[in-house]
């Protein structure tokens, strides 16, 4: 199998799986689950294989496929791996099987539709990351809303309708403005080059006047910022997270939010470099505000899922901060932080799901001393908490450390030129690690420690984790520790792409180094 | 003011009166007749232009208008009959079951 075929297969496996799913009877949920596991497992294997074959330090796309799709408009089915999407593809493929495994016992209604939607979601998310054609990107980007809409709306909690509509309408609003920008770009390419093209690589070469760039970036950025989400466009997130079923929350936190930051990384900033530089102070401010605001809100919540949801706002703020530092440290850190947050928040949501499945409550006040009742559960929860806090040797540390270091390093030269603001922001961001510890430890303390109590479970005694659940969590923890301790492999594979990102956005600052 | 302009003004008046008549009269059949009045207004202006320009097309159009008017009325009257059979009134105000 040639490599490009493998990548295509990776992308289309969920579709094939979904088609096979149609053939299965609704009455045999175990078959449905098994098939989904099989498909997503195969996908993970493929993704891992591609990851190992991916050559570090090589410029441009690897495993590229490019076929005309809407020839008249210059739209191509064009996918490929580069350093920017490699890790996110791996993350998506990694979380897929875990999500399905996590839903083995919790989803009993409309099993077939559920797995179909998860597969569809997987397809669209991978497509978004892999797309190298703006049109294709947009198609996947928007299409992703549909399965998520259904997942939250059908299998969600009490206020699921409100939450899912809010989610959809919020994100769709951003997308509409992005669409306007995409349309405009399409027609600009045509007028500048004479041939229509949506290839992102071609769009990078466009020369746009700065005011136009600003407007277009606004369109793109709104869409991405909503997805990230950045304060003040974040209020869909807590609702969606809280009402979504576990699988939904995991995918939402694990992968979906990354699409926003990936959008900035792949499109927003490199397409409109001058505008990006103009917007940097604003984005940096919002990133830091997100860090602090999210942390503050997480502190005053009593719904476990909400705490984690707001923590996402905070953690994604780091990613944005790293992206706008425009130096290797910051951007590399941002990429690692994306993956890390996917694992950590995904894991935390899975764990909340596990306890919810047992006790049917997400109210922090209802629990206490789980370390006594569910020792194994508590160990895993503690580990994830620590990773969320960013304790060294966990992935959270790698990401946050590099991001903050990058932000600081980016801000220092400006400080020396007399600009205090960026440095102040970078320093304020460091406060986030304190506030992060504040709310996460509050959560851990109230959930795990203190007098033992939990709402009466349905089937009598409270069971500790089953081997299946332990397996899921162990896989997550292993990944978290791996990135924490040995991130270099990842960093090497992404470096070339990050350098190119830097060249596109801030060509004048490439190679800026030690004084 | 030339003759043509006079007639055109009359045509416009007829058209306007016809349109307003549809709005203000209560009886369905009367409303239909006002539709005819509008068509007559149009016909007058067509006649003026046809005559002024010697355009055959105008005359043909007038002829077609007659045909269409006849056809329309042929469909309209049965529908009104149907309606009255159900609602026993010619007041369209009573036929407001579809709304919103």
């Amino acid at each position, binding site marked *: 199998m040639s490599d490009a075929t493998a990548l295509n297969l990776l992308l289309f496996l969920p579709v094939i799986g979904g088609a096979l799913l149609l053939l299965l009877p609704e009455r045999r949920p175990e078959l449905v689950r098994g098939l989904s596991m099989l498909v997503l497992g195969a996908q993970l294997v493929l993704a891992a294989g591609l990851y190992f074959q991916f050559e570090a330090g090589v410029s441009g796309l690897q495993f590229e496929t490019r076929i005309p799709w809407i020839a008249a408009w210059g739209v191509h089915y064009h996918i490929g791996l580069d350093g920017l999407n490699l890790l996110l593809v791996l993350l998506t493929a990694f979380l897929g099987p875990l999500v399905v495994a996590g839903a083995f016992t919790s989803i009993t209604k409309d099993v077939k539709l559920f797995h179909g939607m998860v597969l569809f979601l997987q397809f669209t998310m991978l497509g978004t990351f892999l797309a190298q054609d703006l049109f294709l990107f947009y198609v996947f980007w928007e299409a992703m809303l549909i399965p998520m809409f259904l997942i939250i709306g059908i299998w969600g909690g009490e206020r699921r309708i409100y939450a899912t509509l809010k989610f959809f309408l919020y994100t769709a609003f951003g997308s509409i403005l992005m669409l306007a920008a995409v349309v405009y770009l399409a027609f600009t390419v045509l007028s500048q080059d004479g041939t229509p093209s949506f290839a992102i690589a071609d769009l990078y070469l466009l020369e746009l006047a700065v005011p136009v760039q600003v407007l277009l970036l606004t369109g793109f950025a709104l869409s991405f910022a909503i997805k990230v989400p950045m304060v003040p466009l974040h*209020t869909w997130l807590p609702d969606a997270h809280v009402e979504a079923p576990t699988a939904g929350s995991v995918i939402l936190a694990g992968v979906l939010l990354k699409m926003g930051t990936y959008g900035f990384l792949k499109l927003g900033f490199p397409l409109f470099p001058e505008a990006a530089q103009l917007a940097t102070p604003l984005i940096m401010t919002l990133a830091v505000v997100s860090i602090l605001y999210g942390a503050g809100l997480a502190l005053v919540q009593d719904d476990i899922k909400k705490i984690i949801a707001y923590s996402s706002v905070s953690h994604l703020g780091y990613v944005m901060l790293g992206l706008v530092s425009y130096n290797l440290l910051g951007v590399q850190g941002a990429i690692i932080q994306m993956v890390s947050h996917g694992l950590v928040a995904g894991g935390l949501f899975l764990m909340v799901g596990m306890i919810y499945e047992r006790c049917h409550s997400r109210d922090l006040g209802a629990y206490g*001393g789980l370390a006594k009742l569910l020792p194994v559960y508590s160990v895993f929860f503690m580990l994830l908490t620590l990773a969320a806090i960013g*304790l060294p040797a966990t992935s959270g540390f790698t990401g946050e450390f590099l991001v903050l270091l990058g932000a*600081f390093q980016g801000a220092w030269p400006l400080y020396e030129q007399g600009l205090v603001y960026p440095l102040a922001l970078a320093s304020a961001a460091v406060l986030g690690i304190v506030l992060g510890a504040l709310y996460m*430890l509050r959560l851990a303390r109230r959930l795990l420690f203190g007098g033992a109590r939990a709402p009466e479970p349905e089937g009598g005694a409270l069971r500790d984790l089953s081997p299946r659940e332990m397996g899921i969590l162990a896989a997550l923890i292993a990944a978290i520790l791996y990135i924490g301790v040995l*991130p270099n492999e990842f960093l090497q594979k992404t470096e070339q792409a990050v350098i190119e990102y830097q060249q596109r956005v801030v060509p004048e600052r490439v190679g800026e180094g030690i004084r | 003011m030339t003759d043509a302009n006079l007639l055109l003004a009359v045509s416009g008046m007829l058209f306007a009166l016809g349109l307003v008549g*549809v709005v203000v009269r209560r009886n369905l059949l009367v409303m239909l007749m006002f539709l005819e009045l509008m068509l007559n207004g149009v016909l007058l202006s067509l006649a003026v232009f046809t005559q002024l320009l010697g355009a055959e097309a105008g005359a043909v159009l007038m002829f077609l208008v007659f045909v269409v008017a006849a056809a329309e009325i042929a469909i309209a009257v049965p529908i009104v009959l149907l309606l009255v059979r159900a609602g026993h009134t010619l007041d369209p105000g009573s036929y*407001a079951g579809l709304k919103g």
Partner: protein
Amino acid sequence: MEGMLTFLVLLPLAGFLLNGLLGRRLGTGFVNGVGVGLPFLAFGIALWAWRTLEAGDGAPIVETVFTWAVIGEYSFEIAFYLDRLSAVMALIVTGVGALIHLYSVGYMKGDEGYARYFAYLNLFLFFMLLLVLGRSLLVLFVGWEGVGLASYLLIGFWFQDVAKARAGRKAFITNRVGDAGFLLGMFLVFTFAGTLEMDRINEVFAAGVVPVGVATAAGILLFIGATGKSAQIPLHVWLPDAMAGPTPVSALIHAATMVTAGVYLVARLSGVYLEAPAASALIAVIGVLTAFLAATIALVQTDIKKVLAYSTISQLGFMFLALGVGAYGVAVFHLFTHAFFKAALFLGAGSVIHALNGEQDIRLMGGLARRIPWTFGTFAIATAAIAGLPPLAGFFSKDEILWFALASGEGGSLSLWALGSLTALLTALYMFRLLWLVFLGRSRMEPDTERHVHESPVTMTGVLVVLAAFSVIGGWFGLSHYLEPLLPLPALRLDSALLHWAQIGFAVVLALLGLIGAAWLYRDGGKPADQLWQRFRRLHRVLDGKYFVDELYDRLLQRPWRWVSDRVFLRLGDRLLIDGSLHGLAALARWSAVAFTRVQSGSLHWYAWMTLFGLVAVLIWVWRYV
């Protein structure tokens, strides 16, 4: 030998994994074997490593394990670095650590979380070794945070008690505040040095190319980190609460090793501080203030462990005083001696608590000397050592500190010395107060408790004896001189042997004064002292309330932050402004929808009118352009 340091570091990690994963199932024997055996083995290896170092005449041993990250031109390597400073630290950590592990066998006997306890303790050792052996600030930071984690876990070891779980959290978060400063300092240093390896940072700063302002800022920021870990003002509040953990933990983590990490950090980065006199001065001032204020609080504490906790803070203040006046070696010297006598004191306290079945209030003790003689003897030796009675360990190190506080050419001053000396007096006073109230005088114990008083098992007393012995001899070799090639002592501004001897004499007098004062004030279960305090009731309240720093933080930081989060962020921001405006827009849409559907009234006349109106409007519009 290649890999020696790595092996040393990994040993306790293995202990942690084995005990953590298998301990519960394999029973006490296994736990003891792994949990205590491995630290001793580590101590052995540390000794061997030290011998190797000395054989190489003190040339640092560097072991690169792997590359953590390479980003552009920057490389972050995980490497271990052994020089005399880290060797001393490693010896203290493994040595005292191993002893305390052994002690714990008796102390924790029968506890439900026995295996967990040893796992945590081993984990702590692992991180502490990372901290002291790491070559780069990054590795140090890993250890730094790791020990914080271990401390958090151990403070909250008995997690079902909410207060204890809270204390753990408080410790972690207070430390995190320091860490924020630490990180910023690290970033600043990195920005200028381009590396995080501490020996190279020292070189870069020593080369004098870094602006003084930057060096000062970096120094202060890193020192903020140190204040967190080493419980200096204003981040000292967590340490007394940390006494919620098992007593051996207090001895190991919150007295002998972890809390000295800040001292180690500053000493390690002496190259930076030598370029930043202002930062050094700040350290000296903070150090001496901490020492003094903690000592005053210790005077009135009634919990045996709390007294020791404040005493620890106070002693750490001394160390920072030494650091601040440029006497880095002296600070490490005091760190070294302090490790022994403070460990002895804590373990002795643990033995007392053990004997009294958990009683910690010194007002309910007294007359224990005869009942638990071994504990008493060792405790008394350690008390004398901390009070600075010659020829015990504390005497040497503390004298050197006071001397340099007075005479150092790099920031020594009379006021620092005076306050330091006053603190030395207070130290003697409160320590002997403790000794008197606990061991001497009449028994004030509850009858129930009294009946069960018993001497601790030999694993505990044995450890006490060893530590007491080191408290005696620990000061006899001049550690500061041993470290001089690495951490040269500052030049003196008052280079007079006579003055030095006078200073020593004065210090001994002070210690004796403390002893006598305590003997007099606390002779009768503390009645004379109580009468005295009656006269200074206000002062007593302030001291008893620990200067109300906790309350201040609560009012100034915690509550406002919660208030802002709840009222401003949640209610005003999220609910009212953001969601409010969104819901407003949604309502607008709904309202328009209602309006539009009303328009569609079903009336044919109305429809015709709309058409008419539209036609008119369009015509008017278009004809305007003609």
